[in-house]
């Protein structure tokens, strides 16, 4: 029983995720996509990177990989699944979560710390926080702009499935604090179940105390603890 960190060709945050989870005392292992999921995983991480070279669209190829049928099945059974960055793109491309992540409004790759407002504190991913908390977690993406149709956005908000929004250091959700032009400053969303989530920022890069300026992301990964 362990958390499976799914490694696709071109994933590059898989080791970081395992190390961050190890730090939190969570047993985690990398799983090569072609080997399929282990039996009864405790959880699944779709890590960041550039799976399949971001060909066609970021996440498009990995989303059609056979292991994703297993991931969707596990998600439907209640296994916690989180997609981070490229994993978020894979999650949305595979229909685990609504909307799409596409080219930043800046048309540039952006690697920088951002602030996130915790919009729900009653999910496994945010139990360590209070609603309205502001956390600092880095982004590193060229295709992170959240796009969604007006109808689907209304459903998303109506169903309270926005997990994080980009905000300023004081928690204000403003255009200036929106790094990539995401609709409604959305940085992370829930799937149909609260046990399924995706986000563009990297919690595993804000978990180890000796790595940088923030360990605010640890609370997200503590969902697996």
């Amino acid at each position, binding site marked *: 029983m362990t958390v499976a960190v799914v490694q696709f060709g071109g994933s590059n945050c898989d080791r970081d995720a395992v190390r961050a989870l190890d730090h939190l005392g969570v047993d985690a292992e990398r799983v090569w996509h072609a080997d399929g999921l282990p039996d009864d995983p405790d959880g699944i991480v779709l890590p960041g990177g550039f799976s399949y070279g971001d060909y*066609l669209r970021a996440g*498009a190829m990995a989303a059609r990989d056979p292991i994703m049928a297993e991931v969707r099945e596990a998600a439907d059974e209640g296994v916690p699944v989180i997609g981070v960055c490229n994993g978020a793109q894979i999650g*949305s491309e595979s229909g685990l979560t609504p909307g*799409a992540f596409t*080219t*930043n409004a800046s*048309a540039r790759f952006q690697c920088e710390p951002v602030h996130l407002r915790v919009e729900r504190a009653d999910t496994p991913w945010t139990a360590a926080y209070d609603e309205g908390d502001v956390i600092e977690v880095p982004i590193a993406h060229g295709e992170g702009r959240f*796009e969604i149709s007006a109808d689907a956005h209304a459903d998303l908000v109506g169903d309270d499935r926005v997990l994080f929004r980009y905000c300023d250091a004081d928690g204000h959700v403003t255009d200036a604090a929106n790094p990539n*032009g995401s609709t409604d400053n959305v940085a992370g969303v829930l799937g149909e179940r609260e046990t399924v989530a995706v986000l563009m920022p990297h919690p595993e890069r804000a978990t180890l105390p000796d790595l940088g300026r923030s360990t605010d992301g640890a609370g997200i990964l503590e969902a697996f603890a």
Partner: protein
Amino acid sequence: MTAYTATVTVRLKRGVLDPEAETTQQALERLGFELSDLRSADRFEVDLDAADADEAADRADEMAERLLANPTIHDYDVAVAER
């Protein structure tokens, strides 16, 4: 069976921001070109054998639905020609 080329054109839905097209337009303008707008699209040319043009179009349509386009942000069209 007849040999066809199905051309699938995938473009962003109207109203969806296209930063790459905007950047391209700005670069053209820097080169001195005058233009009112610019849109980009992806074109896939799929060679396949099918009983008739309708079957070829149906198969290309399914390719677009399942992989080539993302319905959240894209529209697409399919054109079939004998090869």
